């Protein structure tokens, strides 16, 4: 039982990982078919996993309604009602159902974009109150931010031809160096973490705690 709980997931992960990595480097028809098949199965498992979070929310909000959680239960009713409508209409007639599309186009999209637009407001107030050049490094940050901001809009080139030129230089030279350096480091980190995960040294990905 301990093998099924602790070691079987690592063994499965290792074998499948080796198949997928080997298929990348060694062109073999059997290996390619096996790799393709197991990747197709993983896609189906992903589809099931996407539903777990939704079911969790459904259970939590229903509990909130039943227990009449103070200050929350009326919002939970709204969540449960809208969630049920979206799921039922999305299944009956698939996602082409007119009611599903109506709810998505007229509620999800405007609210989603309105919530995201709040970020513009917070950035504006942060620019005034928080973006202070307290050191040389922050000054470099603010300078490159201002140049990129002005260079992105037509009025920047109207003010001076140097603004869009400097913007392009900053994006294609220091930003490029930073971007390459950060992501090269991240790639090495992914390689290290991947080896640890496949060999079973890092088990948090399987939902096991430190004691396991």
């Amino acid at each position: 039982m301990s093998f099924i709980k602790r070691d079987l997931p690592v063994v499965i992960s290792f074998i499948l990982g080796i198949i997928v990595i080997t298929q990348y480097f060694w062109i073999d028809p059997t290996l390619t078919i096996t790799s393709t098949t197991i990747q197709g199965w993983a896609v189906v498992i992903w589809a099931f996993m996407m539903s777990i979070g939704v079911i969790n929310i459904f259970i939590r909000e229903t509990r909130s309604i039943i227990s009449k959680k103070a200050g929350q239960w009326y919002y939970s009713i709204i969540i449960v009602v809208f969630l049920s409508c979206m799921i039922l209409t999305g299944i009956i007639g698939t996602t082409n159902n007119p009611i599903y599309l109506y709810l998505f186009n007229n509620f999800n999209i405007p609210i989603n974009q309105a919530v995201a637009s709040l970020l513009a407001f917070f950035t504006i107030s942060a620019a005034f109150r928080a973006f202070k050049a307290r050191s040389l490094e922050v000054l470099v940050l603010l300078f490159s931010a201002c140049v990129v901001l002005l260079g992105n809009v037509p009025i920047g080139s109207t003010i001076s031809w140097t603004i869009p030129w400097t913007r392009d230089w900053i994006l294609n030279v220091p930003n490029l160096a930073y971007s390459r350096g950060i992501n090269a480091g991240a790639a090495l980190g992914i390689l290290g973490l991947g080896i640890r995960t496949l060999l079973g040294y890092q088990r948090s990905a399987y939902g096991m705690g430190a004691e396991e």
Partner: protein
Amino acid sequence: MTEKSIFSKLDNIDRRILWLIFIAFCSIPVFYPLGLPITVTKPTLDLVNAIKALPDGSKIFFEDDYTPLGHQEVTPECIAIVRLLISKKMYIVFASFYTPEAALWPPYIFNVALSKEVEAANYKYGVNYAFLGFIPGGDTSVSAFCLKIRQVANVDYYGTPLDQLPIMNNFEKIQDFNFCVTSGSTGLAGMLSQMQAPYKMPMVILCMGNDYSNMVRYYQAGAIKGLTSGLRGAAEIEMALNTPGEGMSSMDIVQGGFLLLVTFIIIGNISYFVAKYRSKPLQEGNKR
């Protein structure tokens, strides 16, 4: 004394006043558009030229992976590019791997935004273009899709088996496509690592504004043939193709916000440094 109190008041200003100024300032171009010209940058020009260089009737895989958040930025870019693809009679297959809602954008683009162009070009669903919908799994689904399309997609977005769509008879794996257009935000790195790198797929990217600084390195390394981002990218594509649309009309409001942001940064720093200077203790001779 008076200067100090003004700057300290500025430092502690209610942010709702700043927000009202922001809304008012950005509302001016809505009613009085400036219409300043936009310069088309090299990555966008390379993107447009890469597509224009393709022979008519090429087979394009169009990956769209953006949420309703990206709808405002990326859809104008996609509309401009799809208009160009239709004008060149390309065969286009759409799919999304990272964002479920992204499966809804291609029907919107073809049936609403470009309905006139589609009708004028006599474009038929299933013959000239197809929507494969959302295939869950992220990198896994991209990789499996590239190896064998029917391993992960057996029916299209409308539930029709792929064998009943004439266009899909041409496609078994990713190498059957000539070109790939990737749009969105979530799946850019995945598409590059699972589709472009292993199969050397010619690819261009239409991304959101905040992804541009990260994607530049792939453009500079030659991994992608062209790159454009956000509303500015949409405006540049429209400028390059001479098809004015939402991108160009939105730049006035965007530049109002940008100008205000830069102004606030400058004013905020001036008030900070003046307040800092004034708070230094006086030395001999009443100097700081």
